[in-house]
């Protein structure tokens, strides 16, 4: 197996790089070319480009310099954008609001998501084999639904007059709530509108975590639980002392993935509230989008995107640290 592989050495002369037609280096070159150029053009270049944008006062409406439109009428301003983020301008205030909202959104939505999906995954896995498929089908349904449709149907549920939630509230004799349009309405210090988009997002997103958790549950050897049961442990204690600890790696990765997703969740918020009321649901990606494509402040948006990049990097490093612990078990 390895003898053939060992004969392939990197070519020494650049013109021999294409090798014989049909040879292995010929294939490597022809296959690599599209992949490499895609990677450089659509992934690597944009990341560097975003970083550069954050150092320039860039607007697409100005023609600017020769290289990618930098320089000239799009002047270099160094760290001015980042300095301005601390300042008192409306833009900076909106940026800080959206940063706080993004963090609030993620740190409420992720625990909420796990509080729903962990018990749900365990419940689905412990019903009779015959019904598992049925329940899985139902609970994954929101996840495969187009996000714009999810946003529209939830917007309708929250509708002040025709929405189901207010019909129910009126039905039990409570005051109807203006879910998406009342900046003074709060619940536990968090705006009601933010709760509303969190609920819709969690409903839309829970299928992903269910899948990850169910796969992890199925990987837990039945023998462990069996042994505990023979020792007289109740189902509750089996769950608490065996299932849950063994699920930990899956929970860590599921929560990181979910958090990453909620950091850049866009569709549902944009359609349901578009940042309102009074910027209470303005999140970072929405601010980036509006600055870049509605106001033409791409330099500023690039600086914001760079902050988002730092946040994502931080979460990834945290997860790598958490995941480094040993979780092996032998069957």
């Amino acid at each position, binding site marked *: 197996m390895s003898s053939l*592989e060992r004969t*392939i050495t990197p070519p020494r002369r650049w013109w021999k790089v294409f090798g014989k037609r*049909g040879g292995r280096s010929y*294939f*490597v070159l022809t*296959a*690599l070319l599209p*992949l490499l150029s*895609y*990677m450089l053009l659509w*992934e*690597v270049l*944009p990341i560097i*480009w*975003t970083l550069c944008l954050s150092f320039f006062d860039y607007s697409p409406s100005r023609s600017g310099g020769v290289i990618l*439109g930098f320089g000239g009428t799009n002047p270099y301003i160094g760290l001015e954008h980042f300095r301005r983020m601390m300042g008192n301008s409306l833009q900076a205030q909106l940026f800080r609001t959206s940063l706080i909202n993004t963090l609030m959104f993620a740190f409420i939505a992720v625990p909420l998501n796990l509080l729903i999906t962990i018990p749900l995954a365990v419940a689905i896995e*412990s*019903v*009779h*084999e015959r019904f598992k498929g049925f*329940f899985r089908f*139902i609970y*994954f*349904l929101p996840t*495969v*639904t*187009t*996000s*714009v*449709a999810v946003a529209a*149907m*939830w917007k*309708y*549920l929250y509708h002040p*007059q*025709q929405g*189901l939630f207010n*019909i129910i509230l009126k039905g039990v004799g409570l005051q109807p709530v203006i879910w998406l349009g009342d900046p003074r309405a709060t619940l536990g210090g968090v705006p009601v509108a933010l709760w509303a988009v969190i609920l819709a997002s969690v*409903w839309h997103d829970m*299928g992903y975590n269910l899948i*990850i958790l169910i*796969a*992890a549950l199925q990987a837990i050897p039945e023998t462990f639980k069996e042994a505990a*049961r023979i020792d007289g442990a109740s*189902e509750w204690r089996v769950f608490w002392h065996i299932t849950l600890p063994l699920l930990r790696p899956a929970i860590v*990765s599921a929560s*990181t*993935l979910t958090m*990453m*997703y909620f950091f850049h969740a*866009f*569709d549902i918020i944009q*359609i349901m509230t578009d940042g309102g009321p009074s910027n209470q649901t303005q999140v970072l*990606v929405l601010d980036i*989008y509006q600055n*870049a494509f509605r106001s033409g402040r*791409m330099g500023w948006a690039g600086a914001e995107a*760079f902050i*988002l990049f730092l946040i*994502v990097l931080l979460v990834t490093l945290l997860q790598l640290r958490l995941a480094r612990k040993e979780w092996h078990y032998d069957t």
Partner: protein
Amino acid sequence: MIPSRYGASSTLSSIRRRKQRSSKQSTFYRPARWLLYLCLILGSAVTLLPFVWMLLASLKSASEILRIPPTLWPENPTLASYRTIFSDSGLGLWRFYFNSIFVAGCSTILVLFSSSLGGYLFAKHHFPGKDLLYGTFLISIMLPFQIIMIPRYLLLVNFQLVDSLWGLILPAAVSAVGIVLMRQYVDVIPNEILDAARIDGATEWTIYWRIVLPQLRSELATIGILFFMLGWNNYLWPLIVITTPERRTLPVLFTWYSNGHSNRLDLTMAVGVLVIIPMLLVYMVGQRWIIRGIAWTGSR
């Protein structure tokens, strides 16, 4: 991101193992089991509620939907809203179905090609800088799209691809997740088979086409259906790129419709139902593959 994917995929073989085991009764006590089923059914009802509410609204008449107090159940179920939509000449819904299918279909085909090719390349070939390139792919998986969307848009402007369907397809032609996955599956193809073909005089491209691709059939189906779904549901990128009304994909059309064109809730909900239905059909047919694809990739 990566550990979860490996974790999830390695557990999938155990799903099959569990399936073979006879459908063992849960050891829950009877009342507890009934309670469990009750909770799950209630939960299902809550999960389905927004769908039902949308469907009911689309069946109400234009006057009924505005009535105060609102009705829960449509008094005279009517398909009038659907008829209005399909007869709206300013809308031409089929056009947008075509756009969506075209974009999702083309990008899926390109992703399948590039992923399997990249998988074969990374799994069975060596070249300088391979690990570096692979590392770049891995890093690009975790980057949110919003970080690179502005330069990507500017690139499209430079290529004069703004406001064209190819501007939606080309940036989505290669998927790092797809390549990483396919590499794992090509890795397990025995080298002996490939060497045998080489001795028989097959070129590497023939090997890719005749030996590697057929081996990857079920994996390709899995990520294919998943990427079709992701392409179909994509909203932000078409929202940025497309400006001509006729070139909109369904999600963008839908938001435009519900925000500007029509303030009528019954019509909005009816369009919503029409947008959901194709994905629902795909999900019904390919539920197993979609779920497996999500478990493998963790893509959202």
